[in-house]
């Protein structure tokens, strides 16, 4: 009796495990499809000729495939200008915030200061302010300073959301570097700035890199400020370019798709290469502990 009972329970246990495994893989397939299917469809659309896009039955694989939409986007529309503007603005924002942020984060992580956690939390609270709440005063100030339709006119407002994020992330990274190394450098006669430059920053390079990626993505994707402050195509960034796609009688979905793919491909590459870093940076602010 006992001998027969044991195999039957192992069998049902085994079945349960198989069922669980199948359920898990189904779930994983759903998650992956959820995450990439809309973008894959956008890629397919960008290679489909306009005539085929208005057929009753959508084509899952474009035949014949066309590069006409990419041609339209880059040759007939000022899209290369948008790409250039986005790279300049996002790049300048990243550099500005890393410089200002590493000074502040270093002081907050290394000095014994009264109210330093308060300072840190104030920085974080400031980043929570809605952009729409400051867009009107910034517009008035930028207009008075003659900075509308300039790169500075976008980089300066971007500091408002990117700098608190930078300080918060770098503070976390600097704290993980052993303070003994600072002390050793101090004995050798290095001052604070030298320690920051020669000891802390090189050791925090992975953290700096993670922060740079996140700030770059946030600046690259920003829309409200760019829409409000950049009124000529000479200075508009890609999101504004895509939002303002000229729509006279119908939406040129193929061109829109091509433009979307161009903006998104660099981000997809960043994400695939650095997912671990990006997730560690993103969860640093969102999770207790």
């Amino acid at each position: 009796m006992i001998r027969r009972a044991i195999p039957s329970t192992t069998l049902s246990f085994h079945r349960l495990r198989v069922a669980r495994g199948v359920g898990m893989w189904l779930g994983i397939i759903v998650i992956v499809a959820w995450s990439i299917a809309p973008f894959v469809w956008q890629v397919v659309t960008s290679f489909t000729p306009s005539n085929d896009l208005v057929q009753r039955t959508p084509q899952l694989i474009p035949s014949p495939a066309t590069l006409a939409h990419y041609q339209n986007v880059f040759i007939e529309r000022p899209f290369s200008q948008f790409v250039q503007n986005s790279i300049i603005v996002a790049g300048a924002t990243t550099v500005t915030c890393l410089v200002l942020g590493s000074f502040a984060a270093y002081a907050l992580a290394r000095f014994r200061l009264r109210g330093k956690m308060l300072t840190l939390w104030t920085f974080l609270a400031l980043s929570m302010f809605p952009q729409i709440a400051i867009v009107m005063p910034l517009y008035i100030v930028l207009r008075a300073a003659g900075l509308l339709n300039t790169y500075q006119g976008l980089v300066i407002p971007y500091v408002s959301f990117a700098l608190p994020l930078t300080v918060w992330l770098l503070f976390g990274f600097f704290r993980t570097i052993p303070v003994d190394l600072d002390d050793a450098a101090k004995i050798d006669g290095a001052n604070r700035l030298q320690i920051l430059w020669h000891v802390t920053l090189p050791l925090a390079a992975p953290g700096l890199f993670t922060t740079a990626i996140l700030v770059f993505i946030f600046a690259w994707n920003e829309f409200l400020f760019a829409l409000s402050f950049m009124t000529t195509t000479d200075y508009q960034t890609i999101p504004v370019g895509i939002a303002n796609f000229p729509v006279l009688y119908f939406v040129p979905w193929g061109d829109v798709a091509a433009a979307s793919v161009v903006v998104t491909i660099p981000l997809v590459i960043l994400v695939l290469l650095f997912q671990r870093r990006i997730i560690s940076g993103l969860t640093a602010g969102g999770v207790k502990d």
Partner: protein
Amino acid sequence: LAGRQREGEDRVPVSETRSPQAGRKFGFRPKLRASAELKAAVALIAPAAVALACVTVYPTLYTIWLSFRNTDFAGQQNSFTGLQNFVRVFSDGAFWNAWVQTGYFTVVSTFFETLIGLGMALILHETFRGRGFVRAAMLIPWAIPTVVTSRMFGWMFDGQNGIVNYVLESLGLISKYVNWTGSQAHAMQTIIVADVWKTAPFMALILLAGLQTIPEDVSEAGRVDGAGPFRIFWSIRLPLLMPTLLVAGLLRALDAFRIFDLVWVLTGGGPANSTETLSTLTFKTSFSALEFGYGSSIVVAMFVTEILIAAAFGIFILRAMERTEQ
């Protein structure tokens, strides 16, 4: 020696983690050193603090100041009007319409994002091959610019050639094509679908990080006591995850309440203001009608609502934390 050591520790302001022995080496000219350190700290923090004061604090105060004025660039007026703007906000049908829609969007999207995100996180918490790839894939919706998300969903939910209509009709779920973004009945639903698509995987990654901080031996103990997977989730993991869940939900709700990009590009607030949110209403009031004063009053009203949302969540979070500590 002990006395000197303590003295040395006091003199050198360095971070908490340093050992007292190390502190002794720097025990010279205490006062000068301390004030020099303080000056250095202030000098290092000042640039960032001044920058933020200029681009965040000053504009916020400016907005509050504007909310008491009738500043109007089209009408060329600019004077103090007391509470007049707020009286107008409270009796403005457009404001309340946007307020209700923004609230509806916030509640529904946050609910589904948290629920679906939790489901995804539980699946991802299992160990399996290719987990890194799945996590990378889940970052894609987050990384795609919201403007592009709007365009993607605008195309997929297109009334004539959209693939969603085609698939739903092929499956027999709808009998004729639905005008998703162009009809009052469906536009908000389409926006919510797009937002849930974009944010649920992100929520999952945040919640997964929270799940991973829960010690495995607690679940193990439950398993030894004969609890099934469902019971372990419901009685052990969920209560321990609750603080993370609520914090993530709060941050998400505050963010959802500001929704602008998705609405602006997908529907522009239409049709017939059925998707107008507080942010799009503010933007139109300020940059189309050029009524900066009144636009600021709407923002202040929006801000007050956000504080109420945060307070409501805050109470829940405190309660949940008390419960987990017991």
